[in-house]
């Protein structure tokens, strides 16, 4: 029972982090670790991501 709840909670957390893009930072850290780069700061990273969104606004429908 507890195991099932934990799994469900992990699933929800995973979904929300993916959905909001928070998980991109983890991916980036993993990527850097794999290739031996020194990662940039979180501030720098998120800044680049939001600035990319500037040129690419998702249209919202009616």
């Amino acid at each position, binding site marked *: 029972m507890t195991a099932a709840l934990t799994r469900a909670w992990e699933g929800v957390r995973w979904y929300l982090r*993916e959905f909001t893009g*928070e998980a*991109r930072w983890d991916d980036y850290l993993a990527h850097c670790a794999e290739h031996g780069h020194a990662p940039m700061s979180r501030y720098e990273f998120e*800044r680049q991501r939001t600035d*990319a*969104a500037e040129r690419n606004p*998702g249209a*919202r*429908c*009616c």
Partner: protein
Amino acid sequence: MRSVLIWGAVAVVGAICWGVLAIARGETISALWLLFAALCSYAIGYRFYSRFITYKVLRADANRATPAERLENGVDFDVTDRRVLFGHHFAAIAGAGPLVGPVLAAQMGYLPGTIWIVVGVIFAGAVQDLTVMFFSMRRNGKSLGQMIREEIGLVGGVAALIAVFAIMIIILAVLALIVVNALAESPWGVWSIGLTIPIALFMGVYLRRLRPGRVLEATGIGVALLLLAIVSGGWIEDSSLGDALTLSKEWLVLALVVYGFVASVLPVWLLLTPRDYLSTFMKIGVIVLLAISLIVARPVLQAEAVTDFAREGTGPVFAGSLFPFVFITIACGALSGFHALISSGTTPKMLAKEGQVRLIGYGGMLMESFVAVSALIAACVIDQGLYFAMNSPAGATGGTVESAAAFVQGLGFDTSAQDLAAASAAVQEDTLISRTGGAPALAVGLAQVFSQAFGGGGQAFWYHFAIMFEALFILTAVDAGTRVGRFMLQDTVGNVWKKFGDLSWRPGNIMASAVVVGLWGSVLYIGVTDPLGGVNQLFPLFGIANQLLAAIALTLCTVLLVKHGKLRYAWVTAIPLAWDLVVTMTASWQKVFSGDPRVGYFTQAQVYRDAQNAGEVLAPATDQGQMDQVIFNSTLNGILQAIFALLTLVVAAHAAVVIMRAIRAGGLPTTEEPAVPSKLVEPAGLFPTAEEKRAIAEHERLVGAGSGRSEAEEQ
């Protein structure tokens, strides 16, 4: 064998639900019949028809790499988990349209609307979304306009571009009009919606400076503040601030225009992105809440199955007969051209596997349709006298509870002035009479369903909660739409004036934003001050525009099917296209040429012009100035209507030429990208099949741990 039994059972349950709806006459029936009729139909449509389209007609290929896989750059081309992408896509297509359209269409009864929402989505709306997404995916995520230019030709492309831009302006104006009607003279609403701006700004700064990237934290705080903003509206209303926040429609227009302009030139991280998080979470939360509440509350339908207005076309909410106007008014819940803009471009660049277009394109649209059915139910469970008192223009209701009660009694409802006064008191609004646009009526319906489901009253809270949630995502659509419109304008003008097309050139941004905001702002102002009622006059224009855009998208899909040598399957998009063209062209014809002054814009203008020449003032206009206004507005609406229809016909005619050429040649070359073998192992549907599970396990064994990018939480 098991699957035959399950699907047989789904079919039987669906058939029983539809049967109950069809034979119910006179007695009241539960709204759940409607809900389950829809759900069973969706399940069957998804299981059988969408599979046929995806694998037989389009031939989605699991071994062919998607643009996200081939061109992955972590920015726009980004392999995304199908469930996450479903959420993103749904959040992008769902908006106020499927909520307010069905509410207005409820004047014809619950049956015509429901049938069109369900049948329309299965055979037209979801097919369009799926097919456009597939073709765009095969072309590296090209936009609808680009595909039309390249696959049909320059003339069709230019016509489509103008149509898309013009339609967008109308859509923004009508959405803004709905917000204005919901917030006018409502200090509680203005207070809570106004507070969303500082809340979003705070979240923006939080995400940029304080805790970069912690979106969930920021959104959690934002939602909590938002709920506080709704609750606190009740305290504000009776305070001295209440009067200051009681804004007229004209002031609200000004506020919205200024807001829209500022929002579209500010950096996205400051306002647009955080507001988008808020509205997305609110949207999904409310939809889930509504589905649960409907099942818990099991409300009874108050509306008739088919009202007299459907037969006679004399309804006060919008003019015109069932055919074609129910199909126009429902708009987004059954078939929405606007979705074609979202299904091409952003989403196809993120698909991991070709077959996922079925889940995301078709499935996403089914979900939107479900929202529309829920909204229709909410409008049909409230007292129908109240429904008509709220949704008929002030010219008809007279604006007071007494005159409105007399009006709805004239329509055959036994709703008294006391009932109407009690209804507005229950939600703590000064008045609910002629609060047109659909949003207030929906909010009353939602408040009723929620308080019934959760007990303990709280109607006023739920009403303003619903208003807030609708206004919030309409404003998000206005922000984003203005920005997209600005980009389109800069891109187009950039062809002749290079500098203007440079998105980093500040004066260009400001000029383009001002043009876009100016355009929708003027249409909005016209709608707000229209003596005949802006929603009554403009909503058909919005509905027809949206359906015409769908006609353009379905035309493109049909052309592509024929060009790809799939003539024998072209009916999949050609039938909904033919239906959509018949509906939109009939509606356009009636709006332009009808001799009935309540339907035809030009006849309307003529009637008022004649009266003016005779020195009379025709109700609901009260003076010559308003007469001038009616004449000007009706003429303008008529011209816009004619232009939209002509642009669509130009695209269709050009497409017909291309189709004939392609039929004769047995297919024509297209701009489809050549196939590249895929290395990704991802399931196509929501749940992986046994075969896919084996493939994933095999892949992980070969490549080693850590490569199972998204399947970590799946056993």
